[in-house]
């Protein structure tokens, strides 16, 4: 696995690909990747789709993506294939493939698209593009790590007072099936029937605000393998479920400081985080705190704070397109809930250490 990542990186370097590869005037190939060493001091795995426990893990975060863009005036076609942390190299995921056409200030897109919920949702897998090694866990994994949908959107961009750029994007998603390997004995299958939502952003010279709302109807199935003595396989159907989510986020650049905070309110859980980073030459130290509150539903009677984490880290830009993050993250779960663990832990606290390399071209 690790060798595959190194081969991928060497392939990129051998192309001389410091920047995107321009195949023709209109056709561009670009890519990104991350790999890490990570270890926690708790034997219950942490973070959905990454499963980092108290063994040295060299492959829990490994990501590699390729993006092909075609531009011709108002027409655009784009596809992105990603080997996500949970994927084998032989089975990457088509994260997006869409056609777009712009009429004036409105762009219409159809195909497989990225779910535009949080500030960094649309570049979730591009670690080099944000300060931390991973996107804030509480928020970005609060929708089970679902990052893409099949459907349509329209993006309307306009100026306000000539100083602010506003973007409003309604979207609609259709049938899509996702299965998540939560642990060795537990999978969750989510069959999305439809999603209707809207995202909006306001961009100023030194700030960015993001709002999103969506309403999803889906069927859920818990799949247990050898989780209960004497029962090798068990499926628990939970049909006709609804997930509603509101999010608000803001990022400000104040001199060399970057401050960001996001809040998500939903009918299943609500989460938030706040972070601060400071740029000093090629170094960016940062801190981040996040919390999850679980809400009472037909699945759980628990209602209250179920998890939190604190991150202290340092990013160093080795080259302009290659960075390393050195990070310590402290997790807590409360009330017998799983928090950021993939299943309810015996010990509710954990410390996790990460050294992650990331690049783009």
């Amino acid at each position, binding site marked *: 696995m690790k060798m595959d990542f190194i081969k991928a990186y060497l392939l990129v370097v051998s192309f001389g690909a410091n*920047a995107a590869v321009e195949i023709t005037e209109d056709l561009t190939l670009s890519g990104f990747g991350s790999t890490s060493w990570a270890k926690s001091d708790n034997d219950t795995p942490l973070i959905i789709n990454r499963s980092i426990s108290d063994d040295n893990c060299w492959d829990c975060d490994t990501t590699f993506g390729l993006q092909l863009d075609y531009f011709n005036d108002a027409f655009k076609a784009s596809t992105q294939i990603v080997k996500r942390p949970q994927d084998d190299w032989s089975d990457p995921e088509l994260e997006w493939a869409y056609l777009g056409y712009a009429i004036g200030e409105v762009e219409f897109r159809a195909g497989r698209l990225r779910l535009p919920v949080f500030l960094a949702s649309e*570049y979730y897998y*591009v670690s080099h593009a*944000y300060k931390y090694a991973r996107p804030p866990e509480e928020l970005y994994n609060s929708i089970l790590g679902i990052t893409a949908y099949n459907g349509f959107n329209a993006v309307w961009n306009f100026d306000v007072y000539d100083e602010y*750029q506003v973007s409003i994007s309604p979207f609609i998603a259709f049938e899509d099936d996702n299965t998540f390997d939560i642990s060795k004995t537990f999978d969750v299958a989510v069959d999305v029937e439809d999603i209707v939502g809207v995202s909006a952003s306001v961009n100023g010279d030194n700030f960015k605000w993001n709002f999103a709302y969506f309403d999803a109807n889906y069927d859920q199935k818990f799949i247990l393998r050898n989780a209960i003595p004497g029962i090798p396989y068990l499926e628990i159907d939970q049909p006709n479920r609804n997930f509603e989510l509101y999010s608000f986020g803001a990022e400000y650049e104040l001199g060399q400081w970057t401050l960001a905070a996001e809040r998500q309110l939903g009918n299943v859980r609500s989460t938030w985080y706040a972070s601060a980073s400071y740029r000093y030459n*090629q170094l960016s130290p940062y801190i981040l705190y996040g919390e999850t509150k679980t809400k009472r539903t037909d699945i759980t009677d628990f209602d209250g704070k179920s998890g939190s984490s604190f991150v202290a880290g340092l990013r160093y*830009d080795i080259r302009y*397109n290659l*960075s390393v993050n050195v990070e310590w993250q402290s997790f807590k779960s409360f009330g017998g809930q799983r928090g950021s663990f993939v299943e309810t832990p015996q010990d509710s606290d954990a410390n996790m250490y990460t050294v992650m390399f990331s690049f783009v071209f």
Partner: protein
Amino acid sequence: MQFLVLLIFISFLSNTSYAQTGHSYAVFTLNQDLPKLSKSKARMLFRGRVKSLQGTRIELSDWPSDHKIRNEFYQKLLGKDKAQMNAHWASLSFSGKARPPKEIKQDSMEVLLLWLEANQNRIGYAPVDALPKHANVLYVVQGEGL
């Protein structure tokens, strides 16, 4: 720990790479119809946050990645170094929100002018004293962002 100390040491050593010169840089086009830009509009244009001017979709150019003009321009306009700009454009291009500036293949004013001449919606930047007479200067950057 030794690794961290080494990183900090290297970081201090490389501080001098952003030394400023007295150059002023012009954001310009060969299209005489495009309007002058305010400071914030010019900054938002090169952050990829503004994609069109007067209803025209804009294409931007960049000097080659290691070129001094490119590094100084972004330092003066946005107070950002090359790595920060690269990470910023990665967030836009890998979310499908904007196309990064077109990197001209040679560090030559003639190559830049040929690229600009090919389409009226193209905008570039260069030292003020290197501009041709028919350039439409949209904004002049002088020691800002620091």
